[in-house]
């Protein structure tokens, strides 16, 4: 019964018989026409950095009209979460959204905000580019890779039970449909972004059936993309190689839990989640870009937050919408601002305020 509910939740019926290639909805670029996008400013520092993105987009002349939605103060029974049904409908309708950091209120009786978005919108792939920022030194200066994580199943099924007192079982579920879908997106992404290789990360030597199924699906999809190299890497070896020589990787695709761990590890290579963009791809071409760092309530409202992650996520959104020129200009402006080092927020070792950093980015556009 629980499994059936899970499968229904993963929109299994909707993808039967359909072409599995991810639909990338074309967005009109005719002059004057405005595109509506959903914006979740989020909590804590969320509204401030969302404001920074709006400012940058205005200066760059991005024809987006934002439809803002906030986290409610009560649980909406239709979503079992503080996110309202209207908010979800907004993303479904617009097909593009940007999300700032959200803090799930502690307690019971509701689902985490991120989990709600993921499940209700069928966000099956989480894409995280990981690039060393020029001028910002970490111990790694040559990182250039992308992690693509399956976002709907695996260990995150939420299916756990206590067999007897002191013994707990937790279910990891891998399905052919979900694996094919994320693999298809990974190869599509690699092709669309000029990447050369896709590595499937697994532990199929131990979890032979579950990760074995994931690998089988990746192999099937790789045959449809002969121009892209394909390899399989055991996750422990992947972890060690990432910290020794991250330049060996290009695009990595993996099940849910490994994706969570590997993407955060990669963020650590370049300086942390505060500099890491991310976007989620859903059924029907939905793209929800988000900053994955915390809401930092201790510095909220003090104009001290670093908006880089959300700005870079917004750039990903623009690329998804094929506003590549504007995406490049904003992206380069961000990189130049950080490289110059004159205006950096406190977390990057500088003293600039959010406003100063944002204004510097605008000046570079």
């Amino acid at each position, binding site marked *: 019964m629980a499994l059936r509910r899970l499968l229904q939740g993963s929109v299994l019926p909707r993808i039967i018989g359909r072409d599995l290639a991810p639909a990338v909805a074309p967005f009109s670029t005719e002059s004057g026409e405005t595109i509506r996008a959903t914006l979740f400013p989020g909590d804590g520092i969320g509204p401030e950095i969302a404001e920074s993105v709006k400012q940058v987009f205005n200066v760059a002349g991005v024809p987006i009209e934002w439809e803002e939605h906030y986290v409610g103060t009560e649980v909406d029974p239709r979503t079992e979460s503080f996110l309202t049904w209207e908010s979800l409908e907004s993303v479904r309708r617009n097909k593009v959204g940007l999300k700032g950091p959200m803090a799930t209120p502690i307690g019971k009786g509701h689902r985490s905000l991120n989990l709600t978005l993921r499940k209700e919108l069928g966000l099956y792939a989480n894409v995280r580019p990981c690039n060393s920022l020029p001028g910002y030194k970490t111990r790694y200066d040559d990182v250039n890779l992308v992690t693509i994580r399956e976002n709907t199943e695996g*260990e995150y099924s939420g299916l*756990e039970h206590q067999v007897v*007192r002191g013994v707990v079982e937790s279910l*990891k579920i891998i399905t052919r449909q979900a694996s094919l879908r994320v693999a298809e997106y990974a190869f599509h992404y690699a092709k669309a972004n000029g990447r050369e290789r896709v590595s499937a990360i697994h532990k199929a030597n131990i979890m*032979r059936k579950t990760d074995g199924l994931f690998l089988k699906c990746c192999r099937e999809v790789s045959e449809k993309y002969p121009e892209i190299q394909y390899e399989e890497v055991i996750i422990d070896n992947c972890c060690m190689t990432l*910290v020794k020589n991250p330049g060996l990787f290009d695009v990595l695709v993996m099940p849910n839990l490994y994706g969570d761990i590997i993407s955060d590890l990669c963020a*650590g290579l370049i300086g942390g989640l505060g500099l890491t963009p991310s976007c989620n791809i859903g059924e029907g071409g939905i793209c929800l870009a988000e900053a994955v760092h915390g809401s930092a309530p201790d510095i909220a409202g003090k104009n001290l937050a670093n908006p880089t992650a959300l700005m870079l996520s917004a750039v990903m959104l623009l690329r998804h919408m094929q506003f590549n020129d504007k995406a490049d200009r904003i992206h380069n402006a961000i990189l130049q601002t950080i490289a110059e080092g004159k205006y950096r927020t406190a977390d990057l070792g500088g003293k600039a305020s959010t406003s100063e950093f944002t204004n510097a980015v605008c000046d570079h556009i």
Partner: protein
Amino acid sequence: MARRSTPLLRRLLAPSPSPSASTPLAGAVSRRTVTYMPRPGDGAPRGVTLIPGDGIGPLVTGAVRQVMEAMHAPVYFETYEVRGDMPTVPAEVIESIRRNKVCLKGGLATPVGGGVSSLNMQLRKELDLYAALVNCFNLPGLPTRHDNVDIVVIRENTEGEYSGLEHEVVPGVVESLKVITKFCSERIAKYAFEYAFLNNRKKVTAVHKANIMKLADGLFLESCREVAKKYPGIQYNEIIVDNCCMQLVAKPEQFDVMVTPNLYGNLVANVAAGIAGGTGVMPGGNVGQDHAIFEQGASAGNVGNEKIVEKKRANPVALLLSSAMMLRHLQFPSFADRLETAVKRVIAEGKYRTKDLGGTSTTQEVTDAVIAKLG
């Protein structure tokens, strides 16, 4: 009375690899010495089951054998041929390990797919080796991106995602069971805190994903918290596994002893090994109530590639250091110290290093250099 307490003392003291001290004075000042009193018969040679294994296994275990002979270490080897593609570990090998209580092994290749289970895993289950221990530390003279790394990862070895319980529900849908028990969580936590206590470590960090797997990892954490209360002199904290991996690459010096469920331990140990210099130089062991198997610290299934085997250029450092752990486990600390010191001197000099450490030496050249450095 003394005789009755001896088994307990032996159990508490094993295994205890010494963390590397940057200077003898610093070591003397900051570390409490556990005084070792030889007993009659302690010098008698001990039997060790030896499994060379696959790929680079025979090369690196051969290095160990040579060094042991050169030191006149009081151990003798019972060697068995085991290959990773065998369906099971032969019964006589299990019997030998049960009798000797100690085993040294090279890697056993784990075939991906098919119906063969990992022999590495079989051994751990058969002998209930519930703790896997990896010591990741910077070797002096070996350049890495990170300094001051000295981390011990203690991983629960018998359950979790490695339960082996998988099935196809319907075509295209596969389930795998992750099992966490109070019993296993508690004993690994006890082992971690006892290890920290006996080795003068200051902090134990529990690695988890209890924000998602609330019941399973929540049970693990509950067990760790209970044990932590019994060791007020040791700091305890908890970290989510993805943040943990990020923190490891950003600021590894904040970690000391880490205790983890099965899968996370595997990943964390590999990250820590990578930042400290690579799996080629990290020692490790798998320990149970009665038996211990010493092998390369991370990636037991890693047997190197064919070219390294063919040119005999495998790095023996990891297994040599694991052998030192074994000697300490067998309560031959002076031999352990000699071996560790010799290995570290060879690495520090830099004249003889294998390719993975930036050198060009063969396994034999490194081995000969270590033998020459034995004091």
